[in-house]
């Protein structure tokens, strides 16, 4: 099968087949390296219950039109993107009827809560509130082998 993406194919050649996804960035931080704290996820849990749970469900399973925020479908959807992509999507569009109504810290806390529920490990440093910093952390659905954490 052929794809009209010569540049991206070239990029693969450089990146090599690191990890299980040849397209994942193999430099920089990953969600598998403990990028948020347990306390942050706790705070995020409270914010989620107040501002997100009504649509996305108390157990993050989704209701009606609002998708699940847990499980393979959700993580696959963001595979190879960055935490910054997810952060800005949430920050600029959620809650759907009042976007940007949480503080940046609260959005970061909610993200930590989502990461925890999707099985990504906790760490010692809280998730940053700056999109440009979060954009350096890659979401990879599969746990890389041999990278620790």
């Amino acid at each position, binding site marked *: 099968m052929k794809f009209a993406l010569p540049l991206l194919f070239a990029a693969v050649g450089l990146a090599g087949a690191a990890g299980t996804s040849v397209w994942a960035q193999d430099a920089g931080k990953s969600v598998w390296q403990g990028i948020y704290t347990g306390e942050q996820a706790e705070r995020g849990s409270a914010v989620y219950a107040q501002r997100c749970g009504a649509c996305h469900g108390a157990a993050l399973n989704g209701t*009606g*039109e609002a998708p699940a925020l847990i*499980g393979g479908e959700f993580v696959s959807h963001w595979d190879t*993107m960055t935490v910054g992509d997810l952060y800005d999507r949430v920050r600029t569009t959620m809650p759907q*009827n009042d976007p940007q*109504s949480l503080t940046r810290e609260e959005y970061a806390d909610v993200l930590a809560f989502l990461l925890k529920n999707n099985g990504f490990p906790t760490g010692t440093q809280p998730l940053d509130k700056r999109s440009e910093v979060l954009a350096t952390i890659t979401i990879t*659905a599969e746990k890389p082998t041999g990278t620790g954490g």
Partner: protein
Amino acid sequence: MKITAILPLSVTAALMLTTAAAAQTPAREGTMAARTTNGVANWTTYNADLKGSRYSPLDQVNAGNFSNLEIAWRFKTDILGSRPEYKLESTPLAVDGVIYTTGGTRRAVVALNGATGELLWQFALHEGKRSAESPRALSGRGLSYWTDGTKRRILYVTIGYRLVSLDADTGRPDPEFGENGVIDLKKDFDQDLGDLDTGEVGVHSAPAVSGNTIIIGAAFREGFTPRTHNNTKGYVRAFDVRTGKRMWTFHTVPKPGEFGYDTWLNKAADVNGNTGVWTQVSVDEELGLAYLAVESATSDFFGGKRPGNNLFANSLVAVDLKTGERKWHYQLIHHEIWDLDNSSAPLLMDVTVDGKPRKVVGLPSKQGFFYVFDRATGMPVWPIKETKVPKGNVPGEWYSPTQPIPSKPPVYARNGVEEKDLIDFTPDLKKKALELTSKYVLGPVYTPPIISTPEKFGVINNWAQGGTNWPGGSFDPETGIAYVYACGACISSTGLLPPPAGLSDIPLVVGVAGQPVVMIKGPGEGAGADSPAAAPAPGAGSGPPRLAVDGLPLVKPPYGTISAIDVNSGTIKWQVAHGETPDFVRNHPTIKAMGGIPRTGQATYQIGTLVTKSLVIAGENQFTTTPDHPRGAMLRAYDKQSGKEVGAVFMPSTQSGSPMTYMVGGKQYIIVPTSGGNASGEFIAYALPGKK
């Protein structure tokens, strides 16, 4: 109400500057049929034509070159509203080289140069509270075109339920139509909606325009947790395309004395709502009939406030195009309690059955049945048998003892979830699936909902978003074969609980034992450009188990399919899993240990198909990252005859509506509406490489 309009240049003048392909408009009232003249081919209604075909005879893009398609232009819809949209569902129209579409959280209308994607004009109504309160916000499914050979109009319904007529050349409202180009659809509705801002009604679909008649349906809030059973009724109306004057109204919930009123026992027709037509209306211009695919009555899973069969809920109704008078109807589900709204545009097909030419109407459905009727008489082409179905035990519910089940064609999508449907890649997965489902009820189609308890949370089903949803089907008018996407794994669990005080006047709404019962939102509800601040949500507790086993879908593949249904013979000619296997399945350790599995398709309800001279074309709705391509989705082409995939092209985002095709300057384009994940709404136009 404020109007935003950008009028850089008239469409004709703009086209003269950028392309030499401006063709002549034919002198025929109504929409124009697809044709190819001077290198121009049009797509003039949401479904390509009023028969619902989504078919174009173009063949410049074919099996031999599909994979060579490249992006010709992209049009991002972010600026058409106060915030970006992530649910772009509109199918654009193409008329003589100009693209017309709705887009953005404001549901603005734009005209674009079909060869370049350049903005020619933009129009939007700023409706304030009225759009904020709408049950159907966001960009909608599209708009309609009309001409009498001189006048050319674009017609659409705003988020706040106003019908607007615009000059196709300038984007300016037509001063001869309604009040300065606008009709308030909340008025003249044979019912009092009270406050016009908050009165509950809206619609996503594009108006159906035939001759001088515009037909408009209605849609309402999500029916999982309605505030009241006595909400707005979804009457269907027709308006004069020149003046906006109301021509007729069809009462989808009959008034006293009208046919069908007595199918609502205890005068329940007086105090129940919904029963609208939210999908596209199809029209047979020769027979002079409009085909209305009517949705369910309030509420989706509990009908105790509406005993009886509830005509014309869940019926296919043929009405006279000129008068709105009912010619025939067929109720597909009696006393519906499964959220199996009629979702798809009726497909008006000319086929040959048992050696005889037949004019039929086919209707795909959420429940995986493809119903086929003589479209003049309403008689089933193949027997539809009233079949005994299980009676439930929900207190206060009224159950129909039978439901109509078509004998032909065969079921084309999963419509029940039973043990045989559960994941069985390994014995261990099957065992875990059985353990999980021991907390739920399994059953075939029309297994009734239950009261949610800690022992049995609900009925596992593929109802609300399963089978074929709003994108509907498509067909090839030359062969009489319908091509229909269906979701086989859009499963959920449905149980009922009493609502807390103040939430609803219905005794039972959707809920899960152990969880607070909360209001569930509908498509785009509270998400439009004018939406207000959120109310605090109740606290979260521990939920029921996810419907997944070791992170894999609970049900077997295929998760999504395209079926070719031969409506001449009532058989399924071929069926393919549509869509790459999702990453989380393909990369799962168990699947890897098995050495992989055949393509599973993808679970989604947002896929519509496009049919051309030789191909069936549809994109994917989920992002994947595979050894063959980076994160993205594929637009796929299948051979119409065999279902064999003959080409695929990369999309940077996912298909979220139905693709269409047209030609301008001798070049064929395919537009895909895309959105999802971090990618906001964008129309992506594909064409073959080269100047021409």
